[in-house]
């Protein structure tokens, strides 16, 4: 990665930037290869920037998409820290879609802070050194005679000060240092502290602009209905009644986009008000040819998945000799676990504003990947991606759904057709049934124990329609590499075998916050608890022994860090203390997205009614950028984990989703909120993510707690599905 002084370049025309001042660009090496296969040295590609104006105002751009996870505060604060900028002088701007300038803007996989921490720090540090050099020039002293502090450079000899604004234009003439020295941990001003989010002032005033909020002159409003079954298509359409309604102007048919995150197509109504469009939609007379997925019934499908994992399946990974271990085993335990589909159900349903003109295409959308919007719309409109201007708006929750911008593609089709800017809002019902769902799953685990409670063998079968099915619908099961989290589980058992069972996809499958960690974490940590009880051992002691027994050197660090998080959560929860009748604590730890999260869940179970009292979370994600943000992520992960563990499941009948709104998709509400306490494992490791890792350990910790409190073992999530 390299830094560049782009102060004098005229290409920065973004509104809101004062003229003059210091501008820093960052470039990531682009690995382009020339015809003969040699790497081409990267052309100048500034990547994200800081702008310091002559009045001291500081703009910092955030390339990754803000969806409530706090990235647009965390990353800019790392810049400000190294720059010794006063956060009070900083304005954060969300970058438009432009990966040439900002590098990858795909926001997901809990990777943004991990990937951008170092580059952001270096940019800030470089700016600081240039400002110091500028002051040194003014005072005719050496840079080492100066230091920077909170938007000023100070002369050590006489304590004279120059503020950053005064120095900006001189700093702009300086060379950019190539490897600027970074702060040590004890020098951090903002990193590792709890800076409030830059956007929350607007949030409490109702002034944040989401994808669904943008207004334009001549804006029209659209509503859409999609085929309820994947792979089906429109058979007949009578739009006469809809078109007669006052306020309705058009009915537009949208064809399927044949790309992995493409719209499945549908029929849209355009009107002068969203509600009128929705009412008119109901008057469309539509017949669908449902297609072959109309047989999809999740009740029978799940039963089949269970059958598929309770018999030999296709080998994924094998090491040692599981059969031998089982033959020689003193004790054998086996269990089957299932999970249902989940819908992301963010509070903001899919919506976007798109304006297609002959010579321009402008998008205002909540999205997790503006580059994908540029690519797909460019292909559709037969233009260049750089001609598709994507404004990344605040997302009202995403959790993985807004990585797939079918709702933007549709708005573009409508806008092009009716020659007006279009705001398309999916109804909640449409959002619920036209998703990219978390996989339905079944897992079967068999393990052997010796007399000393050591796990001597582990066989693990999983069957679930995978995300890979989006890219290859012919897949009849999850590919072997989708079982990676099981294969590298930090127990590191020597005799191990994993198998993937048959599971064809009959709906779109997508990344749902924590992805496969949800069902892998549930199965592994619940089964480990079952092993502990079978061995007659305290679960914490059993897990401690299991991690200590790890035989795979590559997993040593993971095993240790899992143990560290687990011990901390258990200790803070008061593990081992006597509790009133009907109360118990269950523990679980899971390693996912390079971070380690343990939970100790304290429940009270009376007559099969589960009440979660306290949850102690321990997180090990390396250096934390914002402790308040990290805590907030864990509180949110408990709520999401609790929803999916207890009550929410998307079911299909005759190919279509049965659930429609929040009455039959009962997400968790405030009355059930437990007391969540978050404990941080201090670490000097680089930062790893926290958007997703907190979700996985809740469900197994809950199953373990409920078992300890009541003797009832839940192996199927959700524990208490609604009969829909």
């Amino acid at each position: 990665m390299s830094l560049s002084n782009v102060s004098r370049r005229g290409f920065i025309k973004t509104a809101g930037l004062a003229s003059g001042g210091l501008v820093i660009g960052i470039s990531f090496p682009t690995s382009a290869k020339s015809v003969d296969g040699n790497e081409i040295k990267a052309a100048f590609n500034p990547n994200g920037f800081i702008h310091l104006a002559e009045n001291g105002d500081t703009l910092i751009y955030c390339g990754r998409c803000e969806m409530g996870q706090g990235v647009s505060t965390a990353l800019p604060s790392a810049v400000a820290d190294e720059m010794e900028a006063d956060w009070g002088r900083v304005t954060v701007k969300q970058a438009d879609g432009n990966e040439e300038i900002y590098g990858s803007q795909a926001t997901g996989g809990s990777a943004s802070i991990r990937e951008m921490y170092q580059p952001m720090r270096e940019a800030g540090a470089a700016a600081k050194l240039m400002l110091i050099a500028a002051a040194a020039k003014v005072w005719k002293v050496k840079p080492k005679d100066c230091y920077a502090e909170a938007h000023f450079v100070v002369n050590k000899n006489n304590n004279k000060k120059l503020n950053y604004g005064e120095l900006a234009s001189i700093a702009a003439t300086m060379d950019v240092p190539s490897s600027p020295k970074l702060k040590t941990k004890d020098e951090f001003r903002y990193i590792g502290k709890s800076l409030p989010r830059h956007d929350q002032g607007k949030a409490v005033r109702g002034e944040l602009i989401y994808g669904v909020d943008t207004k334009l002159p001549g804006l029209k409003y659209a509503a859409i209905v999609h085929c309820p079954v994947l792979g089906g298509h429109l058979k007949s359409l009578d739009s006469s009644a809809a078109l007669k309604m006052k306020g309705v102007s058009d009915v537009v048919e949208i064809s399927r986009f044949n790309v992995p995150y493409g719209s499945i197509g549908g029929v849209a109504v355009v009107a002068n008000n969203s509600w009128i469009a929705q009412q008119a939609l109901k008057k469309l007379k539509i017949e669908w040819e449902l297609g072959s997925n109309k047989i999809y019934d999740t009740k029978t499908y799940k039963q089949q998945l269970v059958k598929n994992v309770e018999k030999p399946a296709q080998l994924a990974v094998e090491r040692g000799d599981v059969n031998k271990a089982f033959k020689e085993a003193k004790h054998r335990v086996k269990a089957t676990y299932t999970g249902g589909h989940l819908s992301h159900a963010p509070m903001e349903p899919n919506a976007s504003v798109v304006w297609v003109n002959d010579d321009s295409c402008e998008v205002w959308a909540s999205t997790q990947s503006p580059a994908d919007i540029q690519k797909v719309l460019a292909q559709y409109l037969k233009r260049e991606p750089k001609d598709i201007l994507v404004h990344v708006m605040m997302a009202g929750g995403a959790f993985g759904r807004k990585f797939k911008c079918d709702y933007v593609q549709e708005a573009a089709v409508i806008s092009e057709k009716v020659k007006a800017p279009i705001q398309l809002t999916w109804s909640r019902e449409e959002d619920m049934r036209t998703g990219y769902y978390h996989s339905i799953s079944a897992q079967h685990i068999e393990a052997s124990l010796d007399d000393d409670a050591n796990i001597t063998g582990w066989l693990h079968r999983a069957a679930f329609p995978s995300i890979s099915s989006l890219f290859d619908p012919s897949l009849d099961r999850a590919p072997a590499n989708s079982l990676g989290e099981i294969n590298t589980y930090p127990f590191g058992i020597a005799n191990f075998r994993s198998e993937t069972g048959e599971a064809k996809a009959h709906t779109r499958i997508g990344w749902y916050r924590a992805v496969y960690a949800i069902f892998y974490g549930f199965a592994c940590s619940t089964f480990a608890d079952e092993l502990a009880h079978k061995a007659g051992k305290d679960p914490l002691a059993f897990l401690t022994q299991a991690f200590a027994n790890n035989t795979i050197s590559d997993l040593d660090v993971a095993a240790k860090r899992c143990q560290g998080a687990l011990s901390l959560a258990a200790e803070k929860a008061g593990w081992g203390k006597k509790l009133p009748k009907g109360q118990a604590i269950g523990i679980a730890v899971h390693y996912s997205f390079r971070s380690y999260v343990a939970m100790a869940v304290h429940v009270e179970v009376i007559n099969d009614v589960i009440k979660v009292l306290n949850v102690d979370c321990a997180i090990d994600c390396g250096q934390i950028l914002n402790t308040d943000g990290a805590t907030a992520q864990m509180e949110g992960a408990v709520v999401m984990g609790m929803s999916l563990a207890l009550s929410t499941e998307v079911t299909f009948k005759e190919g279509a989703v049965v659930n429609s709104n929040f009455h039959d998709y009962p997400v968790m509400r405030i009355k059930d909120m437990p007391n969540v306490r978050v404990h941080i494992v201090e670490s000097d490791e680089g930062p790893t993510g926290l958007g997703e890792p907190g979700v996985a350990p809740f469900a197994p910790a809950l199953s373990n707690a409920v078992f300890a409190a009541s003797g009832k073992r839940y192996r199927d999530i959700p524990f208490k599905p609604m009969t829909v």
Partner: protein
Amino acid sequence: MNKTIVINDIEHTINVDSDMPLLWFLRDDLEITGTKYGCGTGLCGACTVHVDGQAVRSCITTVGSVVGKRITTIEGLSENADHPLQKAWLNNNVPQCGYCQAGQIMNAASFLATNAAPTEDEITNAMQGNICRCGTYQRIKTAISEAADEMRKEA
């Protein structure tokens, strides 16, 4: 005769059908977008506004039913985001994505106006209709409690 409605102290003429939900008159006709659409059926609370000071779900409240009434949206709750709830919300860093927060605050404001010293149970009962998918419930509870304390002090 023109039907009118007062929104945040400004009078507006109603030029839509009386069966249109207030939410969509606010958002699409008047372009006041702080009030959000979450479910359209009164299940999630994102659309909460005040009608004569009382919280209602604007997605299931028709324009016709509020003719001549005074509506307050999040934009009109205070002059300077200085309602005790807004201050407590900032003090406790409540919002994550923020989409549900206007509805949360408006619902809480109406509740606190009728119950100055709520217990924790009374708070969660009152707020049970407002969903947050980011999971900010713990902080919402703390913020409402804090705001109630401040409002009692001011009284």
